[in-house]
């Protein structure tokens, strides 16, 4: 079985309950982190872009900015992979409602916000990044598939890569069907260096998903948002130890083991 090892240089996290990775550490240690509120700062965006951007983009950009800040990397040369199971569900709901009623009244801005690579577009524009960027999805396996894509990119191209995985809350008839009730975004900066720091060893497996015990809140968030499938890995990174199997496709698992140098 082939394995891939990547170093984790930065971690970002935002949800209406967790302001950042430190808040998750606090929760895992038995604390009660203060909720950050309903709208992420997404300070990397200009005020104009922040006004235009939908929730999913703000969440993605907030998580991305946190991970980059921790990594100490500059943004403009960083290849990036933006994963999301559903893109911006509120935008899809808006589009489908207007199309069903008066299709010629569709807003051009909301149409360009509807593309799955909206977050990648806003991010590369805001950070003047001309490196390759991608936007992927794999249903409930979007986090695992995104991690695999980012790790493969880092190893194959020998360059650091920003991975962001985020989903927004659903509304309307689409929200009712999908059942994604809360926003969640996380981000990692991974690099191919394998000699120092926190490393993840990834291997394909046919095993079912599993992870070490998590607080009840985390399990609830994982039910409420596809992108929160990243929480077991984030918890491993917070604890500095452990392994888990993430879903990377309907019939493919990704066994992730943590390795650290003292």
């Amino acid at each position, binding site marked *: 079985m082939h394995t891939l090892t990547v170093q984790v240089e930065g971690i970002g996290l935002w949800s209406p309950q967790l302001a950042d990775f430190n808040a998750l550490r606090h929760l895992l240690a038995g604390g009660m982190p203060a909720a950050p509120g309903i709208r992420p700062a997404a300070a990397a965006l200009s005020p104009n872009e922040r006004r235009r951007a939908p929730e999913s983009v703000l969440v993605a950009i907030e998580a991305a900015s946190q991970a980059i800040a921790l990594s100490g990397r500059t943004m403009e040369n960083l290849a990036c992979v933006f994963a999301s199971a559903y893109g911006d569900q509120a935008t899809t709901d808006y589009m489908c409602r207007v199309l069903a009623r008066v299709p010629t009244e569709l807003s051009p801005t909301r149409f360009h916000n509807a593309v799955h*690579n909206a977050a990648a577009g806003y991010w590369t524009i805001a950070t003047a990044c001309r490196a390759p960027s991608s936007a992927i999805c*794999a249903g409930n396996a979007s986090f695992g598939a995104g991690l695999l894509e980012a790790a493969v990119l880092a190893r194959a191209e020998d360059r650091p890569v920003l991975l962001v995985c985020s989903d927004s809350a659903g509304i309307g008839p689409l929200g009712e069907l999908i059942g994604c009730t809360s926003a969640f975004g996380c981000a990692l900066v991974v690099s191919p260096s394998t000699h120092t720091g926190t490393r993840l060893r990834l291997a394909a497996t046919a095993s079912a998903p599993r992870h070490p015990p998590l607080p009840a809140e985390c399990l609830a968030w994982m039910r409420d948002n596809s992108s929160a499938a990243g929480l077991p890995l984030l918890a491993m990174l917070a604890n500095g130890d452990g392994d888990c199997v993430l879903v990377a496709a309907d019939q493919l698992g990704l066994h992730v083991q943590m390795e650290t140098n003292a």
Partner: protein
Amino acid sequence: MRVTTLPLAVSAYTATSALGLGLDAHLEALRQQHSGLRTNDFSSAPLPCWIGRVAGVEHVALPSNYAEWDCRNNRLAWLGLKQDDFLTKARAARERYGAARLALLLGTSTASIGATEEGYRRLENERLPADLHRTSIHTPHSLTAFVAAALDIKGPCMTISTACSSSAKVFASAQRLIRLGLVDAAIVGGVDSLCDSTLFGFNALELVSPEPCRPFDAARRGISIGEAAGFALLERIDAHTDAPLHLLGCGESSDAHHMSTPDPLGVGAELALRDVFDRAGLDATQVDYINLHGTASQKNDAMEAGLVARMFPLHTRVSSTKGLTGHTLGAAGIVEAVITLLALRDGFVPGNAGVSEPDPACSEHFAWHNETRPLQVALSHSFGFGGSNACLAFACADRDACTR
């Protein structure tokens, strides 16, 4: 940190678009310069424009085991998979390598959003109607999940959705997975189908032409939206030494300019070209033909004409084939990759259809009509919303068979 990539064998490929079903139909339409565009008879409300509609998609039936994925986009995918024996060849590859050693990477911009639109037109008490109350079709991953199930693939399966570069970027991801030895082969491709979201969305951006699109015409008035499905099988050359066509490399970049218009200077597009040159060990003088992105929007075509004029020698021939197929959005990358492969295989340059008065910005590189000439190396350009750029390089494997 430049990485030179090894070529891959393109051992099977197919396309289904407004030009017809499969390679022969495409070749014939290209030879005759016969456009597949027709007046819009698709949108749920009138919109005076032209579309590239695939005939008969409505009547395609998915096998009953896959009923949960039934929608226009997946019917088009199924129709496309059955052309040129692609389904058989894909299943043979799975048997040869094992289901876990095969990757599936598909591009789409809207997936099955048409089914979600339909659900919202027929809401029942603020819920999607019972026949469309299925999670499988209201997700951008619907296409790949359906094809993965139909082919029983157990390796990496992923949807790339970067607007109009989606099904070009799948080649780059597949190439990396094979290069690292995570899989032995990959099925790549893409499917996008007509829907209100793109017709009225591009209309809102004032990018839809009221007449058949005319890429690189001085009086072009915007795009004509089309639908298409296309697939290719990529394998290591040592596993397929007699494959006549190779993928040399993929270049990728971001514009960092604007969400819905390209950088007029083409800086990002040029970076993607330089990236593919570095990877494939090519320079511009070796490029015989480029299938351009050429959408017939004012800004793309102006940018791309400038890019060609400043980067390529005059013996490089270029054309857009969107005047024939329409702009198939997330499927444009694979459809135009297939057209590029046909041009290499059969030694011809497809004419840039639809032009009556070329834009003065267009240089001598443009092939306004079909040209017969042996081709060794050809590129396909894909530039999408959000500034997502991809350039693919293909070549004839046997240099002796193609002489300039």
